[in-house]
């Protein structure tokens, strides 16, 4: 660019206290190509924008250097200002003199010197910047929601109610997720299915929702506005149009009560053909081909009893797996969480006694649809426990397991105290061994207070181990409140396990091109400011796949993610960022190094006929390219350029910073 304006921001005193802003303005004014240099207290304010626009109008500047904070913060702001003023927004260059200067140093003199160099190097780059144009892509107004727990249900309903077509993909035979396994919810003690089932029904009957249960996302291609998704629909071996959900096949099955029931955490058994739970949506039977005798051995007695029992003639052994292809503009990921397998803390006895269970198992025992029809009984003997001891933070806040807090354990345990009392009567002894009680949500502390009033023994401390001798369970616990070591003899131990990412979350994230944080949960674009966004445009996250949270927060985040997705779907077309990689076909010889490297599958080899000969060169899809630069760095012949970061532009900056302009070498 030939007419450059330099605008230096004081950022209140954030910059000006450590950088002599005026001396920078004076110095850059003398640089080649600089026709304007100004400073202002808050360049990002409306007044600051007016200063820039005035320079565009009066001085005819065609390039701008803004010396201010990090480009992550205000680059879009200043590009917008430039565009408003009639300048190409991509000839704006940010010099970060706040995070990289004033905040980082304590010598005003040297900080100024560094800021000066950074601004001058940005001017050198600005001289070589090129005006860029944004491309446009049409938006497919459909959404995909992955996961049919409460987060996925909420997001689907929100989007469907906005008028968008929603595909809800759930891997289990029914939607409902973890919440469907719960008996009651804290702090209101609402019956979980009473508040969840109506929403499940709404999903089922919503004209805008295509519910795809027993299905999994196989692959994803495309980008924001236009994703192409393949979904594997596993065969149910039951014709869902005919099945009435009567359950006759379930009772008839020869494998009845012989297969551990996943929904009941293995505390009861089911048939090979089964309905996941009484409130399942869709209320249709599903056949598990791995345990079905007919599937395994080609015969089942004289003939499959399910077929005989089904009046609707819905059993269909011939069903095949199908792959559905969807085209959507935005995606909400709500794949939920797993609980840590407490066997990894062997000292707590989970793998040594049936009477050591987890909170989720207790939830099933308490639930009226559970294995004991809502009667809490010892798994070993079926007797009523007289004493229940809950151990909190099992694997949570533990550097050897999960360093994070599970955020639901304390409240779950407190809630279960109430449910246990309801179930087992006032005389049951309940001990809670806790590290800290975290009751941070609305109404939670009040709930905790109520539980304290109940006759519950709170021990502040962690046991080192659970000692098991046959039916006899003993726990030594040092209580830091009384400063005494207690021995607890108890019938049942309930472990409150850590909340962990889904076992397949790594594989899933790779398939979706999503990043994960160190803990393995899906990574949000910004923890505070973009908690529902991911680093892939058009894919949003909701619920526990992003990190542990309770139902309240999950529903809020799901609605947020739906709203973020709706923001995209409601547009006719999207503008693409032009700061992407571009192949110079005249220099590319088709070596293909870039192709497998691209994390967004944006590069493809293209065959062209030149002078009668077929030549291959790489081509980058400008919609898919996210401008990460992986191919630019890898291209051994320098045929790929990153717009806005071309070699000559960067070298000009280095030249100024180094006071050396000779890049050397053979050209």
């Amino acid at each position: 660019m030939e007419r450059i304006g330099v605008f230096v921001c004081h950022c209140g005193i954030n910059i000006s206290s450590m950088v002599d802003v005026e001396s920078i303005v004076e110095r850059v004014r003398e640089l080649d190509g600089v026709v304007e240099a100004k400073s202002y207290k808050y360049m990002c304010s409306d007044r600051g924008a007016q200063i820039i626009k005035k320079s565009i109008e009066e001085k005819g500047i065609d390039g701008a250097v803004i010396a201010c904070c990090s480009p992550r913060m205000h680059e879009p702001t200043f590009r917008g200002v430039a565009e408003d003023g009639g300048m190409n927004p991509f000839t704006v260059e940010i010099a970060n003199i706040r995070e990289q200067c004033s905040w980082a140093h304590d010598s005003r003199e040297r900080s100024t010197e560094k800021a000066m160099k950074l601004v001058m190097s940005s001017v050198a780059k600005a001289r070589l910047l090129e005006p860029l144009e944004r491309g446009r892509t049409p938006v497919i107004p459909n959404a995909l929601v992955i996961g049919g727990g409460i987060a996925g249900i909420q997001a689907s309903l929100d989007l469907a109610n906005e008028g968008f077509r929603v595909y809800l993909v759930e891997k289990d035979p029914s939607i409902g997720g973890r919440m469907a396994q719960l008996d009651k919810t804290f702090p209101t003690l609402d019956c979980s299915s009473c508040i969840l089932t109506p929403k499940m029904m709404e999903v089922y009957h919503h004209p805008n929702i295509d519910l795809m249960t027993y299905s999994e996302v196989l692959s994803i291609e495309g980008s924001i506005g236009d994703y192409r998704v393949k979904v594997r629909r596993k065969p149910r071996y039951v014709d869902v149009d005919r099945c009435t959900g009567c359950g006759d096949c379930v009772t008839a099955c020869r494998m009845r009560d012989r297969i551990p029931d996943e929904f009941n955490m293995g505390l009861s058994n089911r048939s090979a053909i089964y309905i996941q739970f009484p409130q399942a949506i869709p209320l249709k039977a599903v056949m598990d081909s791995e345990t079905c005798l007919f599937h395994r051995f080609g015969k089942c007695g004289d003939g499959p009893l399910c077929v005989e029992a089904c009046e609707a003639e819905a059993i269909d052994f011939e069903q095949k797996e199908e792959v559905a292809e969807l085209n959507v503009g935005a995606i909400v990921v709500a794949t939920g969480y797993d609980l840590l397998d407490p066997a990894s803390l062997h000292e707590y006895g989970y793998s040594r006694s049936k009477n050591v269970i987890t909170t989720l198992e207790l939830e099933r025992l308490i639930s009226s649809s559970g294995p004991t029809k809502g009667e809490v009984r010892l798994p070993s003997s079926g007797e009523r426990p007289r004493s229940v001891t809950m151990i909190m933070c099992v694997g949570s806040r533990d550097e050897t397991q999960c360093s994070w807090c599970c955020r639901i354990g304390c409240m779950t345990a407190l809630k279960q105290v109430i449910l246990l009392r309801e179930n087992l009567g006032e005389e049951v002894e309940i001990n809670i061994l806790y590290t800290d009680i975290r009751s941070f949500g609305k109404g939670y502390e009040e709930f905790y207070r109520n539980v304290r009033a109940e006759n519950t023994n709170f021990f502040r401390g962690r046991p080192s181990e659970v000692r098991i001798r046959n039916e006899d369970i003993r726990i030594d616990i040092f209580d830091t409140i009384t400063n005494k070591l207690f021995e607890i003899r108890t019938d049942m131990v309930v472990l409150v396990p850590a909340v962990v990412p889904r076992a397949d979350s790594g594989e899933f994230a790779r398939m979706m091109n999503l990043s994960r944080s160190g803990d393995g949960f899906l990574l949000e674009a910004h923890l505070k400011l973009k908690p529902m966004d991911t680093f892939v445009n058009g894919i949003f996250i909701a619920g526990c796949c992003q990190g542990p949270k309770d139902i309240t927060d999950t529903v809020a985040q799901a609605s947020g993610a739906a709203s973020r997705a709706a923001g995209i779907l409601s547009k006719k077309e999207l503008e693409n960022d032009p700061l992407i990689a571009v192949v110079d076909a005249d220099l590319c010889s088709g070596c293909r190094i870039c192709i497998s490297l691209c994390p967004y599958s944006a590069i493809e080899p293209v065959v062209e006929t030149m002078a009668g000969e077929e030549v291959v060169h790489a081509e980058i899809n400008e919609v898919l390219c996210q401008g990460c630069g992986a191919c630019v760095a890898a291209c051994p012949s320098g045929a790929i350029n990153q717009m806005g970061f071309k070699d000559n532009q960067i070298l000009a900056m280095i030249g100024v910073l180094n006071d050396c302009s000779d890049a050397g070498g053979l050209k």
Partner: protein
Amino acid sequence: MKLALYPGCLMPTEQYAYEMSIRETLPLMGVEIVDLPGFSCCGEPLKSINQMLTLHMSARNLSIADREGIDLLVPCPMCHLALSEAKNILDGNGEMKKRINAKLREEGLEYIGKQRLFHIIDLVHDEIGLDTIRERVKKTLPDLNMAAHYGCHILRPSEMGRPVDSENPRKMEAILLSLGVRSEDYAEKLDCCGGPLLPNHPETSLAKTGQKLQAVSEQGFDGMVLACPWCQKMFDSKQTKAAESVGSRAHVPVLYLTQLMGLAFGIDDAKLGLNLNLSPVDDLGLKGEVE
């Protein structure tokens, strides 16, 4: 397989049965034992006095193995811990390695860190293999349910890699099973023998031993199997006193894993030092005929 036997202090000066049974059984399983000159205490018993001294002592013993370029068999868990810890520190901290090597040089030694360390349990379970054990068994032992006791220092701290799983060790049980001996789980399996308190709290130390003996006795085990000379000293040599100190009349046969292996291999009990066990090992009815 050739291994240098690192004897430690207790085994060669009083726990003779352990050494005898090791020297008898290992060659039968294809392990050649080499005796190197110059070994000393591993330093662990003096860790309370000065940890630098412990580190130096461990390093000097390791460097003797380095000089010979041979791996070490360390039958004492306490020594195994000290040597493992020293390796861990010296391999991870270059400055400390220099400092220690400056000391070792005065004796003409240098710590390099090439040697691997084996305890009896991982040697037998992982290197020799249970198939070999089953092949060597010559004698059917009586139907016994023996409580396995590993000894703290072979279990913990697990972070530097110990021969067995710190919370759910199963290797000794697996070895016993291949000798035809059952070993049920018990809640006190990972508990300490009390031995380390012997120097300054002898009575408490014995009480600790007594408690565990009582627990084993109450749960109907036929006896205990050990792989630690310190634990053997507590549970076997001091059994009567230990039991008395907690008012128990525990009467628990205690023997080394290597002794039991030797008996199953058909080795004469005198060669295994069985008469040095002071606990009532005769009750086990082990001295049957070789098939």
